[in-house]
């Protein structure tokens, strides 16, 4: 029997009043936790810096002007500073930094409204003012020792954890009250180092019909395959590649026993390692910036300079000086081996 419900994933779809749909990747409690820890340390650093500045300022005034700031005023200033920082650190940052605090920025997440719009000052303030409620229950230091003061300062985060588990968009109490949620900033595609070890791929790429154009989805699929193929066992790699390569081989009129893995690598090579990107003095090829017609993917490709997985040693001259055109020596389509 087939599963009828939509499959589970960490995504939320938002429909704007203009009937446009956006899909966001939701940040769960464990993606948000490092941001919270970073923000805590940033706040502590600000407080420490504030104290040091105050002490230096006070000492300077006393020494050069003879004006001394009393301990009471110092304490008052410190308390006001602490209070503002504790309650409005998140609110100020999230209001003026598009839903991000330094911690959120470091963890590539941001708070947005549940309708997809950026959060406003009111929402940022409400979600941050309710933060202590999310940290509950607090435990007293007394649980460790009977002599310890009855200070309820140890957060257990249980309220926020339970709240996030039972809400659809991993919202804590503050998020529910402010109508916000935290999403992952979708980063642009980060190119990975790809090792294309077989020199025959360059030759094969020359045989691919010139009028063959990749669609963006196919380019993405092939790029994903080439990026990850080194971690997939050879037999499985051939099986995977044949799903896409089989119709392509037929279309190109290549021999049926042409290695599907090599064909996909050749397509990748032709698409992303262009002649313009080839720098003759380097072993590293830089792909051109992504064009609108192809996928937004550009990967630097390193050609292996030693014995490769397939046991083929690439001639150094070929790597350093040859362009893809020069490398083609009318090699016939290659069989699986």
């Amino acid at each position: 029997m087939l599963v009828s419900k939509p499959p589970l994933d960490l995504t939320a779809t938002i429909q704007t009043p203009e009937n446009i749909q956006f899909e966001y990747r939701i940040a769960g409690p464990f993606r948000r936790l490092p941001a919270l820890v970073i923000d805590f340390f940033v706040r502590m650093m600000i407080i420490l810096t504030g104290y040091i500045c105050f002490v230096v300022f006070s000492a300077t005034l006393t020494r050069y002007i003879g004006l001394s700031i009393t301990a009471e005023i110092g304490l008052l200033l410190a308390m006001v500073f602490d209070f503002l920082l504790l309650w409005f650190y998140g609110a100020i940052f999230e209001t003026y930094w598009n839903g991000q605090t330094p911690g959120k920025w470091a963890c590539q997440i941001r708070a947005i409204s549940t309708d997809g719009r950026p959060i406003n000052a009111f929402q940022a303030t409400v979600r941050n003012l309710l933060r202590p409620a999310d940290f509950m229950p607090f435990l007293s230091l007394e649980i460790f020792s009977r002599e310890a003061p009855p200070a309820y300062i140890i957060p257990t985060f249980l309220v926020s954890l339970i709240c996030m588990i039972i809400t659809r968009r991993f919202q804590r109490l503050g998020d529910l009250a402010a109508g916000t949620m935290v999403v992952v900033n979708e980063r642009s595609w980060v190119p990975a180092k790809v090792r294309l070890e077989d020199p025959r791929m360059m030759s094969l790429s020359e045989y691919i019909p010139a009028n063959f154009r990749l669609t963006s989805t196919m380019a993405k699929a092939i790029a994903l395959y080439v990026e990850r193929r080194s971690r997939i066992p050879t037999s499985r790699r051939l099986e995977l590649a044949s799903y896409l390569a089989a119709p392509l081989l037929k279309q190109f009129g290549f021999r049926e026993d042409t290695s599907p893995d090599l064909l996909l690598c050749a397509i990748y090579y032709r698409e992303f390692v262009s002649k313009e990107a080839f720098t003759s003095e380097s072993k590293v090829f830089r792909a051109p910036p992504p064009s609108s017609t192809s996928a937004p993917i550009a990967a630097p490709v390193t050609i292996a300079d030693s014995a490769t997985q397939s046991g083929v040693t690439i001639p150094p001259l070929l790597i350093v000086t040859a362009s893809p055109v020069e490398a083609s020596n009318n090699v016939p389509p290659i069989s699986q081996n």
Partner: protein
Amino acid sequence: MQLDKTAIVIAQRSAIDIIDLSLLVMRTYAGSIVFFTILGAAPFALLNLLLSIPILQYDSLATESIWYSSPWIYRVRYYFVATGAVFLQAPIALCLVTNFIGQSVFVERQSASQVGRAVFGQWRQVFTVLGLLRLGLVSYLALMLLCLIPEFRPEVEVTIYLLGMVGFAYLVRAFRPFSPEILVLERSPLFVDKKKADKGVSQSYRKRSSWLYSAQYNDNFGIHLILSLVGAATVLALCSGALFVSGVVFGKWEAGVLMDAIIFPLCLWTVASWMTVLRFLFYMNSRIRSEGWEIELRFKAEAERWKETLA
């Protein structure tokens, strides 16, 4: 197995995303997971309680004569023993959860009898690997010894039990974490006769494990370390929460018999159940990565599109 008909989207995920996703899975299958956890863990939990209560009583009496400042201190030994026991027994006790979640994600929701039949059909393999080799049932030898002679003997408790058994199991599971999945979901036999092996019809547990873990040892160890910390922190948070509720509702802010006998083991088994779901998700992610499931789906879709375009 139809990869495009799974209950969880097939995609390679980071460890942090998998931990978040596990909460979503827990919520979706909450009722069944709780049911199978109780069904599998209740006998183990009861036996553990019976065997480890003498330690608690002995330590309580022994520490009455000496000065101590924390109400927790005499429980430390009991808590270590109880935690170690749950850690060792969780893989075998929660096989039902493993089977249920695996079947639900890849095939369909199974009834309790179907899950039970599937797991008991593999009882030899489960008993041998998870019960004996991974010390799930062997742990009862140590617990019985502690029950009979509850005085603190470091050579038994620290050397044999904690460092020996728990430490050994921790390391084995850190590098080879997916044994329950290989045995219960993939139904790998312990031994395969040569004819079948030559034909590639069936893979033995050992061969399958070697294939699955190759080139993933570092990742597995790192993930296991992180999950241990997350699990420990969650148990602490749950126990503290229970203490807070007890304080607010009953005015009792100190851990008592209820905490020792019921709440603490309950928290341990709750987290063990969550860790079972997490382990399954990491197993799935590992197969997505090593077998390229995500790529397979994309390639099949692209091939279809290509054929349609040509047609």
